[in-house]
């Protein structure tokens, strides 16, 4: 069912990672991604993997739910793997028939590409699983703060993001309801050609869009009734503050990126 989608869901918990400042987690994610793209060999990927597994272990997020979240991405992974496998030039030929040539270089490149995407996504999941949408947008707003100087509506942007995240589960529930109602009138979403299936979506999409606009309208009215005004002069109830463990985490991040750089300079 639609309800089983776990993409970007927040799992409340009590681990150190849950309690880190959202800004720390965002910065660490960027550091992690940069390190991942700097890594070129088995050894450096190994270091990255150990770091990732340790972080998952500390966060106490069941590894099962991370694996489950990957399911919708299987297609992209397979696609990337195949593309790299067939279209990478190399010297050591392993298999050759008809127009297809598979070389050792292609094999290792395809493998690394898939591993890289997997680790990239696991890292992002770790962030969304351990950070509530509200503190995530809070962190983003604070990190983008300097852009205010360029007259970028930073607060409004993060508010929009926060609202969008908030409404994902609501809209999923709504879709479920509308689907049941149309099924009760004999709508069939499973059988028929691709064209039929696309047409069958109209009875779901129209009511869904209408209700999304209605909700947006109601929310806007409610915010206006409370004299909501974003940006300048607005104070926060919960101020973000770096603590000791945030600085320690930054230390780990520096060590990680330094390690990968050193390994890279040795060609590993």
């Amino acid at each position: 069912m639609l309800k089983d989608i776990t993409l970007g869901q927040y799992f409340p918990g009590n681990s150190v990672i849950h309690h880190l400042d959202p800004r720390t987690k965002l910065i660490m994610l960027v550091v992690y991604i940069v390190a991942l793209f700097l890594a070129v060999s088995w050894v450096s990927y190994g270091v990255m993997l150990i770091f990732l597994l340790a972080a998952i272990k500390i966060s106490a997020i069941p590894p099962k739910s991370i694996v489950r979240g990957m399911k919708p991405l299987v297609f992209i992974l397979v696609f990337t793997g195949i593309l790299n496998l067939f279209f990478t030039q190399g010297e050591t030929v392993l298999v050759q028939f008809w127009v297809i040539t598979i070389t050792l270089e292609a094999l290792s490149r395809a493998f690394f590409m898939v591993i890289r995407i997997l680790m990239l996504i696991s890292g992002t999941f770790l962030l969304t699983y351990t950070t509530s949408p509200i503190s995530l947008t809070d962190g983003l707003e604070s990190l983008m703060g300097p852009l205010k100087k360029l007259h970028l509506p930073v607060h409004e942007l993060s508010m929009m993001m926060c609202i969008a995240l908030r409404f994902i589960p609501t809209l999923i529930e709504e879709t479920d309801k509308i689907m049941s109602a149309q099924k009760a009138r004999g709508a069939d979403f499973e059988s028929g050609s691709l064209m039929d299936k696309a047409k069958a979506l109209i009875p779901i999409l129209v009511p869904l869009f209408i209700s999304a606009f209605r909700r947006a309208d109601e929310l806007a009215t409610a915010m206006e009734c409370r004299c909501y005004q974003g940006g300048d002069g607005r104070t926060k109830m919960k101020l973000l503050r770096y603590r000791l463990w945030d600085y320690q985490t930054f230390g780990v991040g520096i060590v990680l990126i330094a390690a990968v750089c050193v390994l890279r300079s040795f060609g590993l």
Partner: protein
Amino acid sequence: MEPILQVQNLNYIYSQGTPFEHQALKDVSFSVERGEFLGIIGHTGSGKSTLMQQLNGLLKPTSGKILLDGKDIWSDKKLTRQARFRVGLVFQYPEYQLFEETVYRDIAFGPKNMGLKDDEIDRRVREAAFAVGLTQEQLQVSPFDLSGGQKRRVAIAGVMAMEPEVLILDEPTAGLDPAGRAEILGHIENYRRSHNATIMMVSHSMDDVARLTDRLLVMNGSNLAMDGTPAEVFTRAEELLEMGLNIPEVTRVFLNLKKMGLPVEPVYTIDQAVQALKNLRGGDAEC
């Protein structure tokens, strides 16, 4: 005659095998006779909506059986699809499911899915629209230009046009004004008479169910707690109140009168109350 619907030892568990597992129905059994007007009451989360979605095959029971005309609706794919049409289900706030360009086409959606001929669809659409009090002109306007109460009628007509033998409605009058409520309930009663149909209605208005239904099912904590005529159910007023449910206003008044020592039996509709008071007056001059 055989009951039209039989529910046997029905169990339903949501998201089985995940941390969000939740049993919504526990060993529910009952049967529904042809032409009956059945009321379902129970507080929020007692399993009413889940139960209704089982009856037309939208949700598959975890265990147990649903027999329509004596045949298990899950024994054959064709029977499951047939159950969708023979048991019409009107969801809560059905006006949010409207999607077509005109009222006519929206009401025709169900009959069209049944694969009926064009003139039969036309007959059914006009009949259903008339049955819920929509005018000919309204058939050609966009459903989104109508008022809330009229949208609700269009949505109900959309299900009635499939001419189901069993019509199930989940709080059809929620959020309507008193006049709108009375009208919708009248249309439902008329549908039952004209099509000799069976009606099942979920409602939070005890006055409505007391006045309209032949039999009441009371859901409590995923269980079927009571099954009987309104008279039988409402005499167990204390149990109902304990479940967080209400009793009709007149029943409450009469229970208090009885407590005060007047020789009255509990009633549950206004008509009965009038009769009871008249009897009291005839028998006892002081009153």
